[in-house]
């Protein structure tokens, strides 16, 4: 789960990570008040779940409260388009108004999981403010890494090494080391999957501050963090994704015209692949899970067919726990109830497959059956083309 920058900074502040003074505003008037209370120059930052805001005009410097108000007025309600947003952009509903920090150096500091080592890695770099992937690709030696102990966490000596490696000295080295440890503490306490400060800055008056902050959380651990769960902003998610998650379905909208309904994540990915190999483009990833009920099948069907770019639907199920007769019942109910006009290709295999096939054949519905994955993909791609 992602959260906004202003929420991340509030959380980090609780853990003793230094961030600029500021507050969030949902109106130009409120932006004015915050700027006046802060005094001096401020930065007005659009709050959306996407990076690349600066280049897209989502971050503005304001010399006065009136200028902050004007900047907020311009940003609030606009659709911000960055390389990380959908093409139509994301509507800005809030802005963060912060004191402007005079920057002497831009650094990078982040915590994430190192899967190969099965523990967290803390990464630091003097090349802050840039895309860290680019730094990693071009000059990997510029990224320092310290691996946390799985049980004991990040030790003070490791935090010191990171701070020295960032080129910090004296009081700033101490502040930087403490900040790294506090960032790590937040990561562990809140079950983050990424805690990234880019840039972490040294100001001209010698403070070490998180100028930008990104926190993402392990969805599987949200059950034990009601405070974090409360920070979810569904406005930042696509409506179909939100609806699918309500029914326990794993749905991701893509750009193609072949709707896919599959059980199991691996088979769902493989189905997307085979659709493309057959010359089509998948419209979505949809995993209905291992033990889907006929109701879930029906909901899945409704969600994927409500995407207007879907021209044909491919159902590919290998019944293990999910029995083919139950799948067939769900499909028949969904097609009847929704009065679905789209062509549907069904490929199923596994437990109770004969019964399931018989049910589909006797349903009187215009469903196309496929003998295997390859056959199904060919058929559905042809049908999607013909419907266009």
């Amino acid at each position, binding site marked *: 789960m992602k959260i906004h920058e202003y929420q991340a900074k509030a959380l980090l502040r609780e853990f003793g990570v230094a961030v600029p003074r500021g507050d969030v505003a949902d109106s130009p008037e409120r932006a004015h008040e915050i700027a006046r209370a802060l005094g001096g120059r401020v930065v007005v930052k659009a709050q959306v779940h996407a990076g690349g805001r600066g280049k897209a005009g989502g971050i503005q410097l304001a010399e006065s409260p009136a200028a902050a108000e004007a900047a907020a007025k311009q940003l609030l309600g606009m659709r911000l388009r960055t390389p*990380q947003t959908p093409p139509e952009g994301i509507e800005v509903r809030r802005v963060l108004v912060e004191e402007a920090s005079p920057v002497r150096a831009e650094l990078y500091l982040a915590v994430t*999981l190192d*899967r*190969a080592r*099965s*523990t*967290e890695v803390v990464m630091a770099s003097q090349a802050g403010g840039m895309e*860290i*992937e680019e730094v*990693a*690709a071009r000059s990997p030696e510029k990224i320092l890494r310290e691996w946390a*102990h*799985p*049980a004991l966490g990040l030790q003070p000596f490791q935090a010191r090494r990171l701070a020295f490696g960032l080129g910090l000295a004296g009081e700033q080295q101490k502040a930087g080391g403490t900040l790294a440890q506090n960032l790590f503490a937040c990561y*562990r306490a809140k*079950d983050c*999957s990424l805690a990234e400060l880019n840039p972490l800055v040294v100001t001209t008056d010698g403070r070490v501050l998180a100028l930008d902050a990104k926190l993402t959380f*392990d*969805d*599987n*651990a949200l*059950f*034990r963090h009601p405070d974090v769960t409360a920070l979810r902003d569904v406005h930042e998610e696509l409506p179909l994704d939100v609806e699918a998650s309500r029914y326990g379905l*794993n749905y*991701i909208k*893509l750009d193609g015209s072949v709707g896919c309904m*599959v*059980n*199991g*994540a*691996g*088979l*769902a*990915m*493989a*189905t*997307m*692949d*085979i*659709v*493309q*190999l057959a010359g089509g483009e*998948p419209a979505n*990833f949809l*995993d209905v899970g*291992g*033990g889907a009920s006929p109701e879930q099948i029906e909901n899945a069907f409704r969600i994927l067919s409500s995407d207007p770019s879907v021209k044909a639907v491919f159902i590919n199920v*290998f*019944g*293990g*726990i999910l029995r083919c007769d139950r799948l067939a019942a769900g499909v028949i109910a969904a097609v009847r109830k929704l009065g679905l006009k789209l062509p549907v290709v069904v490929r199923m*295999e*596994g*437990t109770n497959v004969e019964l399931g096939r018989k049910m589909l054949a006797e349903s009187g519905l215009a469903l196309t059956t496929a003998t*295997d*994955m*390859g056959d199904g*993909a060919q058929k559905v791609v042809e049908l999607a083309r013909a419907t266009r």
Partner: protein
Amino acid sequence: MILVDKRTRVVVPGITGREGAFHAARCKDYGTTVVGGVTPGKGGTTHEGFPVWNTVAEAVATEGATCALIFVPPAAAADAIMEAAAAGVPLVVCITEGIPVADMVRAKEFLSRTTSRLVGPNCPGLITPGQAKVGIMPGHIHREGHVGVVSRSGTLTYEVVHQLTTRGIGQSTCVGIGGDPVTGTSFVDVLRLFNDDPETHAIMLIGEIGGSAEEEAAAFIRAHVRKPVVAFIAGQTAPPGRRMGHAGAIIAGGRGTAAEKMRALEAAGARLVPSPADMGKQVAATLGTA
């Protein structure tokens, strides 16, 4: 065959849950020796014909359990894994999906101080056809034979097994290592076992996007594996930055793409199958039985 066979004695933590009870019975139907289950507080009772203990240690002491098949819900699953390892169970298989990553980081460290091997979590388990089924896969699609199957996915594994069996090609053992970012057993671990197993003549590897487990497998294949390996990588069309169902299946920062993994495996001498419909066909061609 590797890891499980006729001698495997399975205890099922979480047996009083719906999934646990259902699959314990299916494993038993297949011929697996399921000695009973564990649910704290329900020790001394029986559940659907299976004896229930309070602790895994009791199941080991009374029935000599050699394998724990875990269906405990996500919040308590890592604890169940550690309990089974502490009780000295050599093979711990965790089916549970949705365990917090941090819990697995801790559990894996705990396991490193024991002699237990963990398979999973978030996996279908493993099966040695004709010997023992320790997992949730449909048993009837399998057939005894000589192809070792190792996979990060569940239903996609059933798909390849079905393709093999319908061509008359049997399997030595099929291992689902799971789709989470932190898992107990890696591709490399299973490849090493298959490479040393005289009953395994060829290996089918099914990977997916995310992480670097396939690249590590490729390095191991190049250096050590002396048997033919056929590989498929799911997620060739997956967009970056989106998690494809499995917590571990995400292309992040330009790394973990299918193309990268396929290149690494091909360079290591594995035969890559571009289409998931052709996995069985490629294995048959490799074995010369096509």
